[in-house]
């Protein structure tokens, strides 16, 4: 009996053992399958990481892996790539995506451009750009850079907003006349894009401050309007190793150059040329014409400012160049509104071996800039105010207005035809100043303006400079035995002293 029962027990035990082992085997198989799946996903995640997974995304990756309960994989990635600390939950939530939610919406249209992409947008966000000059170039340039999401924008300008700026300096407005351009620009830009940082410098750039300011930025935009500032900005950009996007405009034409790009140290000939490489000697001061004197069509300067913003974005978001590819070739882009074709791009020279700023024998040093020994105004020269006539050959506008209107006087207006057509005094004769005494005398004689009829001659222009030269030209040749005078201060004085309604263009 006993032996029978013992045998039954043994069978029963063995069956339970088989059952248990089978359960265990099933469990093991299931575990194996899960482990294999884990290993596969871990391998994929790992190779994705090695295949250019941006560092900014590591938290994102870890978060996904945690949610899927693969702590070991997460740990492996972390250890393999030197991330020792486990990401805290708070940190992961904050940096779930590399850009903020609103930034995907705001920058979405440029973000989907392969030229920009997430990589480019992050670079813009981390970039600091300095806009020197908040005028016709700086206004559109700063607006587009703020719109594009450049992280920090610095704004330099020492001027205040004037009504005559508004046809082209489009981020200022009528209600801001009298405000500093920097504050006016800030108000517009902060409304356009409040999410970026703005630094305001409401003064003209000076050599002693240039390096200190430039060092806080990655890229500089020259939006100024005079050779003096153009040389200073270029020198400071070279000394601080910053690329420089430079543009200019006058009348119906514009020019654009990207300088010091790549921004190699002075002496490295593989760096991009600087302003002094292209223009080692400043132009004679009297050949420099400002927008106030020469005029400017609004969209022309606006276009050049927009192109500066574009070039800045291209430099900031440039992908790493393969080693075998040549660096960007320096070019000058010229725009001419009334010419065909309107655009022309020409190849420029590379760095000048003997350049005063960017060569190995550079004489322009950080010290020279900060201790004030470099005098940019003296270097470029200044057009002196014209004062060539003796006092008795000049008459105040108010005195001219009191002269008898009996036909004993003759008024020659030497402004150009366009200005003469805007406003002119009745009875005046228009003989535009030609820039040269001989040719003007020839022109005036041909037009009959210098006919000797015994009348007194008065000469007038816009501001009272050319009129002196014309009066002097007549006197020097002793063409007329009679009285010749220029009207001091021209039509500006006429408006102030005599006729307040005279157009103030």
């Amino acid at each position, binding site marked *: 009996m006993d032996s029978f029962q013992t045998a039954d027990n043994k069978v029963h035990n063995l069956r339970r053992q088989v059952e248990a082992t089978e359960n265990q085997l099933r469990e093991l198989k299931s575990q194996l399958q899960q482990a294999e799946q884990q290993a596969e996903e871990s391998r994929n995640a790992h190779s994705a990481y090695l295949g250019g997974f941006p560092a900014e995304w590591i938290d994102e990756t870890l978060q996904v892996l945690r949610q899927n309960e693969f702590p070991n994989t997460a740990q492996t990635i972390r250890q393999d790539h030197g991330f020792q600390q486990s990401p805290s939950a708070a940190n992961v939530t904050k940096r779930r995506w590399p850009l903020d939610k609103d930034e995907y919406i705001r920058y979405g249209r440029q973000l989907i451009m392969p030229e920009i992409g997430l990589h480019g947008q992050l670079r813009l966000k981390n970039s600091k750009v300095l806009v020197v*000059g908040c*005028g*016709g*170039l*700086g206004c559109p340039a700063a607006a587009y850079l703020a719109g594009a999401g450049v992280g920090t924008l610095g704004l330099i300008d020492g001027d205040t907003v004037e009504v005559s700026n508004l046809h082209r300096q489009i981020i200022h407005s009528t209600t801001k006349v009298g405000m500093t351009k920097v504050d006016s620009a800030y108000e517009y830009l902060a409304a356009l894009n409040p999410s970026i940082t703005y630094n305001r410098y409401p003064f003209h750039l000076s050599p002693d401050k240039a390096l200190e300011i430039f060092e806080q930025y990655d890229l500089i935009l*020259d*939006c*100024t*309007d*005079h*050779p003096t500032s*153009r040389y200073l900005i270029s020198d400071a950009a070279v000394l601080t190793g910053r690329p420089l996007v430079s*543009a*200019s*405009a*006058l*009348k119906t*034409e*514009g*020019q654009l150059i990207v300088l010091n790009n790549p921004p190699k140290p002075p002496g490295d000939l593989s760096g991009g040329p600087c302003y002094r490489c*292209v*223009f*080692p*000697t*400043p*132009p*004679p001061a009297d*050949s*420099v*014409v*400002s*927008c106030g004197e*020469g005029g*400017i069509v609004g969209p022309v*300067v606006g276009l*050049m400012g927009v192109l500066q913003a574009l070039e800045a974005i291209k430099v900031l978001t440039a992908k790493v160049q393969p080693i075998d590819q040549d660096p960007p070739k320096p070019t*000058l882009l*010229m725009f*001419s509104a009334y*010419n065909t074709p309107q655009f*022309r*791009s*020409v*190849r*420029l*020279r590379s760095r000048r071996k003997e350049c005063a700023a960017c060569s190995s024998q550079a004489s322009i040093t950080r010290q020279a800039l900060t201790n004030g020994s470099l005098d940019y105004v003296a270097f470029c020269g200044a057009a002196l105010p014209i004062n060539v006539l003796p006092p008795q050959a000049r008459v105040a506008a108010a005195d001219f207005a009191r002269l008898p209107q009996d036909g004993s006087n003759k008024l020659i207006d030497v402004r150009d035809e366009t200005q003469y057509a805007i406003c002119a005094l009745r009875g005046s004769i228009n003989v535009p100043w*030609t*820039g*040269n005494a*001989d*040719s003007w005398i020839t022109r005036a004689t041909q037009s009959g303006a210098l006919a000797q009829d015994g009348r007194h001659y008065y000469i007038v222009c816009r501001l009272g400079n050319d009129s002196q030269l014309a009066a002097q030209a007549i006197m020097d040749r002793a063409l007329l035995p009679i009285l010749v005078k220029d009207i001091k201060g021209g039509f500006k004085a006429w408006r102030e002293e005599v006729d307040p309604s005279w157009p103030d263009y």
Partner: protein
Amino acid sequence: MTSPTIEIKTEFTGGLELLFSNQRKHKVSLPATDLNGQPANITFLIQWLCEHLMKDPRKDMFVLEGSVRPGILVLINDADWELEGEEKYELQAGDEIVFVSTLHGG
């Protein structure tokens, strides 16, 4: 016997056109060799333009000390003349030489 000439295109921009009858583009035909019998180069061209094409008496707005005044870029077939040998570049028929005055406004 007329001496051989060479035909090129010239253009003046950035305000320089004001010195050249307010006309930007000029086709010019100049002697193929200079007074010394050397092939016409940029130096010769500049001198020739001053004497024959430029009606404006303000020569110093274009030429200073025998070369173009500072602030003027010379472009030879869309390249900075410094890439082509500057003044010594020998003109070829059909060349396009552009004189650009730098702008400073902004």
